[in-house]
């Protein structure tokens, strides 16, 4: 059976083809707009924060005995505490409950979360409040009057 001219000029099929083509090229056009906008909005590396190093070193004099120093380590806030002559601890200060930054309370020798009242001792162990886990700790040591903190 030979196809007639009318079959070859099937308008419905043509319209469908044109419609699909229009949709396809519109999708490419939309992608060409959306992708640059997405790249524009995506945060740059520079704004990710300081303190990405895997270890850090600073003079021991910056943390007197019985005191604490807040630092930025592994891109997160952390603290170095010297509760007494012998001890030296480095802890993450991101509360394990909902991520607030815990504060150092000198009088009670505890770390307290201002958001929901979680309490931690100087080794990061939970003393009370809603925190489900202890604060992660880092290795800390004194070498030639310098405090060195490293990821465990």
């Amino acid at each position, binding site marked *: 059976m030979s196809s007639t001219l009318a079959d070859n000029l099937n308008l419905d099929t043509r319209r469908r083809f044109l419609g699909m083509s229009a949709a396809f090229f519109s999708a490419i056009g939309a992608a060409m707009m959306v992708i*640059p*906008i997405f790249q524009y*909005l995506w945060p*740059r590396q520079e704004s990710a924060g300081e303190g990405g190093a895997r270890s850090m070193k600073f003079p021991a004099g910056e943390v007197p005995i019985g005191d604490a120093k807040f630092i930025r380590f592994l891109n997160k806030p952390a603290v170095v505490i010297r509760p007494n002559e012998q001890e030296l601890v480095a802890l993450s200060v991101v509360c394990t409950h909902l991520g607030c930054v815990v504060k150092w309370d000198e009088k009670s020798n505890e770390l307290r979360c201002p958001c929901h009242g979680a309490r931690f001792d100087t080794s990061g162990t939970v003393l009370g409040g809603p925190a489900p886990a202890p604060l992660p700790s880092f290795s800390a040591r004194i070498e030639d009057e310098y405090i060195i903190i490293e990821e465990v």
Partner: protein
Amino acid sequence: MELETLELGPLKIRNKLAIRLFSAVDDRLGVKEILQDEMFEKIVPAHLTFWACFGGISFFIFICQIVTGALLMIYYEPSIMKAHSSVARIMNDVPFGWLIRGVHAWGSNLMIITILIHMTKIFVTGIYKAPRELNWVVGVTLFLLTLGMSFTGYLLPWTQLAYWATVVGTETPAAMPVVGEHLRYFLRGGEDIGQITLTRFFAIHVMILPLILASIVGLHLVQIRRQGISGPM
């Protein structure tokens, strides 16, 4: 009742989900009727020429300005210490920042040009005459608001050009008798141009004028639809 195909003007929708979603909205709001009457079967008068497009072109640029402006606000910092460096950062560091700001800056110039062409066309062909006088008034208001957008936006990069243009621009109304000096004081937010000026120009540019402008654009379009396109000359 399930439709096999949904015909919307030139569109034939066969996708079941799309038909059901559309019908769900249509059953409640009668959208199909509005789309048919106002979009797909709306007859454009044969006498319209290319010159009738400039209102629509201005509207299109206005939409572009809103989109690019919102994107620029992501990185722009409206403080005299950081305004210039944040704009430099948009231009040099942020991917496609140059493009977004370029479209915004060029768009602002283009919008003034297309509005002027639009107004000239309306004026020369006498379309502003009865019953469309009110829409001419609304249109002129839109033009003045657009100039306000240009004026307030020009200060934001906090360059020498921007600063001194604003000095001159706020000095000009001060020449008016009686109210002039007060107007200058009000525009600048003080005797000199400083942080307060930048902050208030920023607020006017990104919030106050766009809201007013967008609502009056709506009024402009409603009037056009209500009165229809004017007849041939």
